[in-house]
């Protein structure tokens, strides 16, 4: 049997579509964890990236923080947090947020910093206060790049949120971890397929959001 057979067997088994261990439930749980982590990471990364990018300072510090965040192993962090804090949502959120903040932070900083200076100077010359320069000039131009940072973070979260199952929570990772211990490759392959599908959905959502919110003028030049 090859991987495709396993996947077909998994998805054609009716038992996988119902109940607390059914695909709809696990999928919804996974989306829930991922969204929560992404929102928290964005709430940290976006404001800091916008402000530092606007003033063009602290790039080296941010790069250092980003490298450190990337270097910390998500899985190790999860185990450590479970040992320290016990089972629950918090020990799962901490590694996911640590994973997602660096791409958001660094891309946002780069995006705002690399905005063409002439419209920014023009806005200042028109007497716009700094906050309006940031939100009405720099932000719309930087938006496509900011989205690409959020997208990278979201894909990484979706793929890594599977580790939540290792500490007794749900999500699609349930199938992968359970399949590993039950030596049930059908489940593992099914779970992996679901995560990859969710990642593709994430890509599609980001494409749609950027179609809707990026100004046509910016889109054409970018």
């Amino acid at each position, binding site marked *: 049997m090859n991987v495709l057979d396993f996947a077909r067997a998994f998805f054609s088994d009716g038992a996988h579509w119902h109940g607390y261990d059914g695909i709809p439930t696990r999928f919804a749980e996974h989306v829930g964890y991922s969204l929560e982590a992404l929102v928290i990471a964005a709430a940290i990364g976006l404001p800091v990236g916008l402000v530092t990018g606007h003033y063009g300072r602290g790039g080296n510090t941010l790069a250092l923080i980003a490298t450190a965040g990337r*270097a910390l192993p998500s899985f190790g962090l999860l185990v450590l947090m479970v040992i320290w804090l016990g089972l629950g949502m918090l020990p799962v959120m901490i590694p996911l947020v640590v994973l997602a903040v660096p791409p958001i932070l660094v891309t946002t900083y780069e995006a705002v910093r690399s905005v063409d200076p002439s419209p920014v100077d023009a806005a200042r010359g028109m007497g716009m206060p700094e906050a309006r320069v940031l939100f009405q000039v720099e932000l719309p131009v930087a938006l496509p790049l900011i989205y690409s940072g959020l997208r990278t973070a979201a894909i990484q979260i979706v793929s890594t949120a599977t580790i939540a199952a290792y500490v007794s929570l749900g999500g699609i990772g349930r199938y992968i971890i359970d399949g590993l211990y039950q030596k049930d490759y059908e489940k593992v392959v099914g779970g992996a397929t679901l995560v990859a599908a969710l990642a593709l959905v994430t890509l599609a959502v980001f494409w749609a959001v950027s179609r809707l919110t990026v100004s046509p003028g910016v889109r054409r030049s970018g």
Partner: protein
Amino acid sequence: MSGFFDLPSDLQHSYLGLVGLHLREALLPVLAGLIVSLPVAQLCVRFRWIYPPVLGVTTVLYAIPSLAFFVVLIDYFGQSETTVMVPLALYSLVVLVPAIVDGVRSVPPETLAAAQAMGFGPVRRYLQVQLPIAVPAIIAGLRVATVSSISLVSVGMLIGNQGALGNMLYDAQTYERSALAVNSVLTIGVLGVLADGVLVLVRLLLTPWMPRKGAGR
């Protein structure tokens, strides 16, 4: 009590032994990824239509969680280091191919024309003009690939203790010695930052023509 760097004997390695094992398991895949991605990227530059599908395939591969990848590969390679290294090599492709393509494409056409006018053939032009100019972009990709590879090896613990430093996490749980988990996480983090630093140094050595100001990025 035992010291911070004294490991339980079931790990079958000293602390430094685990560090060595970890580096090998993390760096060999990146090297393999680099060797594969150079020709792939060159193909993508030569034949533009290949690039979008290649990018699509690698993005989907990247979305597959490392653990699922490991477990599926157990069927082919057993619970071995190879099972851990194959997915890591594939992940590094995802980062390296676009980095190299962007780097090689960023070479100005005048430079290429000048090389051609000097009588450079395609091979020499690639090795002596395009590749050196693409070095900063390639190293930027290598930094991301290397650091994430070092941190992902630890997941290998779940498939029969193939996670090098990550194996300490299992012992930390079973023996309730949280210091082991702290040690594992910190050591992996420090290794990642050090590897990143080494790559920055390599870039500085390889690109003496670049302006030194803002060398951090």
